[in-house]
């Protein structure tokens, strides 16, 4: 069996170096194949190197560790087992230990050797179980469930759902009733608000908009897409297993992230 390979994503150079040193002590066979200084390059390097273990700092420039992991879940090739994920954080604002699906491990900074040793044992166990395809799939599903929980932790729903979207159009403000919105899509610095036949741009980020929407009516299907559930006409799966949506009243096809594909199962 080939030696296991790991990638470290950490924006503070001294800490990246220290984790490497500690890992060399706790897990001598492990090979570090890359160190990324930000979330976006962590995703890129992971896809290139296809390591077995990821150590992701939670707070990083460009893309947080959580968002990077979510993006990886989408872009990871289906025929390869998903790497074992370990989040590293200075302060556990997500209360990681509270999650029932402990598919993803976490380390608190400064990293203590005894705690790291425990993590190494858990990861080794997970890697050993991965050789069976079914176990790999179960692990991946559990990882997705935990990522979903982490990504939506702390967003308390607003007391009253939003009724009107106020979108700036030139010097005017257009009022778009939320009931008419087919979907919201994040686009660079804006969020596109799409209704049947019309489109508007707003500056409120999707993350802030979501808690104000009725969670029963609007479903997040991708990190940048929130869809009115009742407007979905059909969900199709292509040969690589990816889901996409066809909406009533819109020609566009919307991709469904693997993170949210659990929403669509035949009854």
């Amino acid at each position, binding site marked *: 069996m080939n030696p296991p390979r790991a990638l470290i994503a950490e924006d*503070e150079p*001294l*800490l990246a170096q*220290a984790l490497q040193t500690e890992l060399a002590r706790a897990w001598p066979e492990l090979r570090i194949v890359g160190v990324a200084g930000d979330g976006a390059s962590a995703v890129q390097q992971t896809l290139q190197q296809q390591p077995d273990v990821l150590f992701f700092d939670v707070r990083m*420039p460009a893309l947080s560790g959580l968002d990077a992991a979510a993006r990886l879940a989408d872009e990871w090739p289906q025929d390869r087992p998903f790497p074992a994920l370990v989040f590293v954080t200075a*302060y556990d604002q997500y209360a990681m230990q509270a999650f029932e699906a402990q598919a993803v491990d976490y380390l608190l900074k400064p990293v203590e050797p005894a705690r790291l040793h425990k993590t190494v044992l858990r990861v080794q166990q997970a890697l050993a179980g991965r050789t069976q395809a079914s176990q790999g799939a179960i692990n991946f599903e559990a990882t997705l469930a935990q990522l979903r929980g982490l990504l939506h932790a702390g967003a308390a729903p607003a007391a009253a759902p939003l009724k009107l979207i106020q979108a700036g159009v030139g010097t005017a403000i257009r009022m778009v009733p939320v009931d008419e919105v087919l979907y919201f899509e994040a686009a660079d610095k804006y969020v596109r608000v799409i209704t049947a036949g019309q489109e508007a741009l707003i500056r409120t980020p999707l993350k802030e908009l979501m808690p104000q929407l009725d969670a029963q009516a609007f479903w997040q299907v991708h990190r940048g897409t929130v869809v009115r559930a009742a407007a979905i006409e059909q969900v199709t799966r292509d040969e690589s297993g990816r889901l996409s949506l066809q909406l009533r009243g819109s020609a566009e096809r919307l991709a469904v992230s693997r993170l949210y594909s659990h929403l669509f199962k035949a009854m």
Partner: protein
Amino acid sequence: MKKTDWPDKRRTYLQVLAFALFVAVLQYAFLPERSFGPPLVYSFFIASITWAIIDFGRDLLAAGDETGWPRGWRGIVMVVGAIAVGYLLGSAIANRLCSVFGWQAVDATNREALLRSSILITLLAGMAASYYFYSKGKSAYLERKMGEARRQADEARLRLLESQLEPHMLFNTLANLRALIATDPARATAMLDRMIAYLRATLAASRATSHSLQAEFERLHDYLELMAVRMGPRLRYSLELPPELASQPVPALLLQPLVENGILHGLEPKVEGGSLRVAARREGAVLTLVVSDTGMGYTPATPAGSGFGLAQVRERLLSTYGAQAALDLATPPGGGTIVTLSFPAA
């Protein structure tokens, strides 16, 4: 109109009834030759009607008022009016009732004197009871207010301390220290000294109100040096304090939240990092302090928390220098953020 608080109404009414009983007993004690029945019946009806008008009238007139009582003349008119109506209506009903029971309440000979004394008793008792309930309501209101103010002050202090001893900053710095101890003990010692100075200054800042600009820049230097160890080549900084301004007094750690915002929301989220500059200059009688960074720039989407730092600086400026102080936030087209403070030089 506010929602009727029935348990409170019942409690108040029971107290009013007890008071009415007390007034009747008092009358009986002074005029034992008369029967106990009539004063009790009169007391009961007058007190009940007066109470009902005042207590329900309060809900109607003082719905928005925190004390639960109408303010100024409206309150007085309500109470006096309620007592008058209570007296007239209550004694009329009591009259009827007494004659039904065959109690001769009013002695025909000194009818006038009795009338006067009963009006006096009603008025005094009504005023005394109203005053009692009014002060009770008011003191409860004041207590509530004080509790609220105390809670707000506690919250503000806690948030200030939390923002200064931000856990990410603290534990990441400790993690760097831990790493340095093994690889570069001399640098670890220097970093530890910076951290001690930073922590000491942070904890002292809640007590000391002002220090020299020199001290302010030294504390910023400690903080930036800690951040420079953590961020490596991603952070460059410069501190520019002309020597003639070194002794100028400033509110302690006034600039700290601005420098922290510049790093936390400006430079840390930026992949390539950037530079941060703090400078002081004097133009005539005005001292100007500038904190600028080449980071992400201040946007409405800047995460919550940065607003707190800015608001806190603005508030401290205002409370120290009043209208003579100004805080200006600019986002130059080339990116980054520039915060400019100006206030009278000493």
